[in-house]
């Protein structure tokens, strides 16, 4: 596992995502409610690009007529067949044991921190005054 600096935090808009090529893989990084999540840009079902997914809330119904929305924006709906996955760990909601999207650890670190460690800088020089998204692959 190596840590890769993929972007400045300001490069990925809130509620949006960006795709990065890291070690030959397409990895999509989502920015939700101030947090970042990294997943393989590929649905395990038929290979759809998850960068085009809808970011939705979890909707549950403990009994008929009662509905609860939670975790707004933290679920992916695949752009093709609508399979839902948890952005935090790639797990599917309908079959968490068998079906999941590969997910990668993400960290946000300041430029100042980054001066110290052994990282792979992808495309740009690191500046002390910015924050960066680090994906571990």
């Amino acid at each position, binding site marked *: 596992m190596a840590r890769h600096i993929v972007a400045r935090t300001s490069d990925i808009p809130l509620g949006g995502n960006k795709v990065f090529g890291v070690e030959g893989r397409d990895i999509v990084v989502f920015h939700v409610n101030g947090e970042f999540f990294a997943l393989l840009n590929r649905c395990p079902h*038929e290979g759809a690009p998850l960068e085009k997914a*809808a970011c939705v809330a979890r909707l549950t119904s403990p009994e008929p007529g009662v509905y609860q929305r939670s975790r707004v924006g933290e679920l992916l709906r695949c*752009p093709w067949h609508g399979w839902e996955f948890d952005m935090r760990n790639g797990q599917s909601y309908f079959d968490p044991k*068998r079906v999941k999207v590969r997910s990668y650890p993400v960290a946000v670190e300041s430029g100042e921190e980054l001066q110290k460690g052994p990282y792979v800088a992808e495309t740009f020089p690191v500046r002390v005054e910015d924050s960066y998204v680090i994906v571990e692959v």
Partner: protein
Amino acid sequence: MSDVIDRPILAEEVAAQSRLRIIDCDVHPSIRAHADIEQFLPKRWQEHLRTYGSHLRTPYIGTTPYPRSSPLIARRDAWPPTGGPPGSDLDFMRKQHLDPLDIEYGILQVLDLFIFSQQNLEFGAAIQRAINDWQLAFWSDRDPRLKASILAGQDDTTFAIAEIERCAKIGRYVQINVCPRANEPLGRRRYWPIYARAQELGLPLGIHVGGYGGHAPTGGGWPSYYVEEHQSNAHTMAAQLTSLVLEGVPERFPNLKIVFIEGGFGWIPSATWRMDRHFDAFRSEVPHLKRRPSEYVKQQFWFTTQPIDEPDEAKHLRSLIEWVGADRLLFSSDYPHWDFDDPRYAFKTPLTETERRKIFNGNARALYKL
């Protein structure tokens, strides 16, 4: 952990040397703007379209009943960067679908403007005629891989026959498409002149799911949910297969070829087993049938594969393919709709090289004479 759902790879799949190009039997082009279609509509109907629009045989007014899972029932990645609805931009279709998946031929299936659901049959006929011209001008002329179907709504049988004649003279269509939800079950004799003409011309009869009939789409009534309505596509197909076979259409027209499009194929075994069993018991009610129902199905009907059935155990899909018969199946993607099947990943069970060649190319090549 693998990145796609695992399935075992057959030794012969690895060893397959020659490239298998794909014939996709369900590709949906869409009209980019009304102006594109108006050039093929007489002034009288252009004005009708603007002034009155659609008047449909459905309790839902003027629209599809609700957003269906995603805008315009499309893959979220299928919106052309140039604007316009999914399926309306040929270049984008080439780039996203035809080229990367190595589609040798795509059979066009048009659903725009509620083609078969217009209660005003003359207006419906005018739209069908315009779309038949538009398919050639906007698609087949521009990309020879894309093959058009003659839209001919069967409730105005006189028009349907006239339109089939007109298009057959042009000679560039590979199929005659009729409505899956007509006023009466498809086996009824009022529709036989169309079947007679299709047989004479050697054009398969295509029946693509969808549209609104005058009846509830399920035997139980009107569905409450989209997911429930989606299920009804298979019920409708099963009812129409039963009607066609038991009314004697394949018996009366032994060279007619019938293609069920986008109904999947998981329901076929039980429908045919049940028909056979009942036929054995009630043969005297339908003495016009000379063979068991399943024999007609195995000789005169084809079924496109999408939306593919996905049993929890992959080996059950294997059994389904064997029950229905690899000879009867035609690969289809349904591009650009949300329930699209990718030919590389849709089948979660191994196929033999012979089966792959038949399902992805050979069956359609022979059926449509490509």
